[in-house]
């Protein structure tokens, strides 16, 4: 068999092949393993972020509180304060990770993430405008973020989407322009608020999980779950999009349809995440890079990137609660402080190889 292998290489050496009725599925072993590991990591970090914090609570008490027993303060702490927060973190990380990987693949450029292209900023602007216009302060209007993101993306597609150009540069430049425009409008609005409003908005624009609650979590997760199958349907196209057009189109890539669908998914995913927790920096950039290092180059890391996003966001949030004790650092701040060195590490490692 070894002798045969050298002369006749097996195509599916790294995969498990399954025949389920008429279905013939190929499950790459590495993908399964990596995802399993990520799940275990995620479970660990979820538990850790439930247990750690200002308020001392033991593991047993946490579990009991989760099951609905124990002291009233423990019940409130776990079920009303920490659990919604963890869920918001999961939802945001998931959306950003997935949106990041899809956009990077589409534009064939690691720098293309919802934040660089202004999609996050569009969502933020929508929320800021709504908060400013409404007399009472309503952070609950999460759904305006996807709408803002969609408008930004529409502008993006209208002006640059038709021609992604060589390695997505056109798209990126237009995105950078949009980001600059939207950000300065955001800053202008913030500078005209009173300090109280402004600093609350500022915390929000950094990305924070502290406001997470069921009223936002449930609709946002439903939205994400409904978009997820569409995203997974795009996977086959995305694997082709990593090539030049002159390779991808003869291999059966529908040029315009695929691009529109992918951008649509990105908008919904990124917009919902921004709506839930504000624009958290770096996750959409780092999660796909990490995930594709874990998976190897032959796969587009879709779900893996999404889970990586969850792990990143939750880790950052837990750290943010521990580092600056007794204050809380918003998750977005921790992400950018830690994300920077991480990116450097990736760059240096890649160069060394």
């Amino acid at each position: 068999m070894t002798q045969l292998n050298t002369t006749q290489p097996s195509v599916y050496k790294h995969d498990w092949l399954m025949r389920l009725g008429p279905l013939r599925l190929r499950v790459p072993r590495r993908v399964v393993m990596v995802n399993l590991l990520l799940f275990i990591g995620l479970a660990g970090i979820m538990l850790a972020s439930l247990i750690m914090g200002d308020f001392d609570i033991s593991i047993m008490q946490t579990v009991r509180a989760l099951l609905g027993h124990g002291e009233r303060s423990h019940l409130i702490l776990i079920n009303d304060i920490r659990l919604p927060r963890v869920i918001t973190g999961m939802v945001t990380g998931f959306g950003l990770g997935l949106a990041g990987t899809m956009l990077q693949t589409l534009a064939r450029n690691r720098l293309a993430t919802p934040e660089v292209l202004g999609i996050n900023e569009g969502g933020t602007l929508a929320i800021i405008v709504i908060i400013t216009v409404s007399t009472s302060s309503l952070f609950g209007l999460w759904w305006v973020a996807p709408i803002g993101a969609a408008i930004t993306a529409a502008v993006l597609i209208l002006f640059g989407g038709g021609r992604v150009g060589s390695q997505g540069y056109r798209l990126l430049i237009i995105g950078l322009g949009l980001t600059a425009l939207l950000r300065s409008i955001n800053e202008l609005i913030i500078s005209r608020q009173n300090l109280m409003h402004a600093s609350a908005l500022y915390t929000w624009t950094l990305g924070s999980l502290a406001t997470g609650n069921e009223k936002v979590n449930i609709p946002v997760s439903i939205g994400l779950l409904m978009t997820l199958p569409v995203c997974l349907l795009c996977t086959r196209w995305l694997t082709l999009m990593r090539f030049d057009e002159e390779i991808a189109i003869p291999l059966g890539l529908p040029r315009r349809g695929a691009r529109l669908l992918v951008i649509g998914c990105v908008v919904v995913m990124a917009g919902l995440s921004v709506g839930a927790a504000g624009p958290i920096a770096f996750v959409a950039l780092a999660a796909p890079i990490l995930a594709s290092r874990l998976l190897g180059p032959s796969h587009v890391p879709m779900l893996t990137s999404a889970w990586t996003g969850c792990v990143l966001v939750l880790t950052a949030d837990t750290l943010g609660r521990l580092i600056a004790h007794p204050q809380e650092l918003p998750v977005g701040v921790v992400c950018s402080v830690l994300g920077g060195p991480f990116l450097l590490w990736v760059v240096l490692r890649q160069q060394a190889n």
Partner: protein
Amino acid sequence: MPITTPVTMSCTRWKINHLKIESCLVMKTLTLSLILLACILLTACDQSQSENTETQRSQDTTLSRPYTDAAGRQLTIPTHPKRIIALSEVDLDAMLALDVQPVAATDGRGQDGFPRYLDDSKTQGITSVGRLGNPSMEAILMEKPDLILLGGFYTDQALAKLSAIAPVVVTYTLREDWKKGFERVAALLNKQEAYDTFMIKYDQKIQQVRKRLGDHIHDTVSIIRWNPKGPMFMYNTVFASKVISDIGLKRPEYQDKGGAPHSPILSLESLDQLDGDWIFMGTLMTQGDAVSAMASATSTPAFKALKGVQNGHLIPVDGSMWTSVGGPLAAMQVLDDIQKAMSQADE
């Protein structure tokens, strides 16, 4: 040309793989069912938890009463609250004015502790639960409050979370006068007498200042902030402006408008809009920095040309009460500041 060997070979491989797949499937279903179980438990516990709090709350019914707060929310609150947390400066200020100490409160606006104008002796023993507008839920929970006072700016999410911990009373809405908030706090704490006493003292003080003003009663008072990138002025919605109108003093024409609390950054060519018979310049920083802000302001020629400045009526004041929000104690201090400024100017 066709190659047959790899196919047969890989067929044997696939058989082996099928075994592996089955074991993998078992693992997958196991993990999946575990996750499902966890989800079910979580939802179950949600319900049991709400029942739990219900029973806890119903125990207190004998000592509680219905109440409608400033935001129009129907609440059940304790008749004699013991452990109160004040989450806005008006609430803290009002409680202290009524000689009641909250167990915990948020820091002052733009400060790393309780508002500077409050006596240290009064705030001693109060725990800080973080920044105004963004308090730490866990710290609040640890104080085990039975009533939470929240005024002005809040988010719906924060309100929902706080309500899970204890009844939350919104004591005043954003644009409301501090007096309304004060009145409501007094009612909540059953301190009607202390409230009346304080308000009488306040009115007396107003009369006193008015008398002191004499001819100056028709003067205009400009309230400004100085940023290195440019100055701005406060509109009449700001807290100190209300105290000033209580006295009977006026605001300059440009500044006598509602809406936003302060103007955008003013062009250095239009500094005349800052002018008034009296110019109170507030900073959020301590006295030392206010002086440096003064220095940078007065180094601008256009600023020096202002009427108020030339008459020596430029007065640096603590911005933490002048240019933001305050309660009864802050109002008294604003009156003090004005009185002091007047007498200094007279000398």
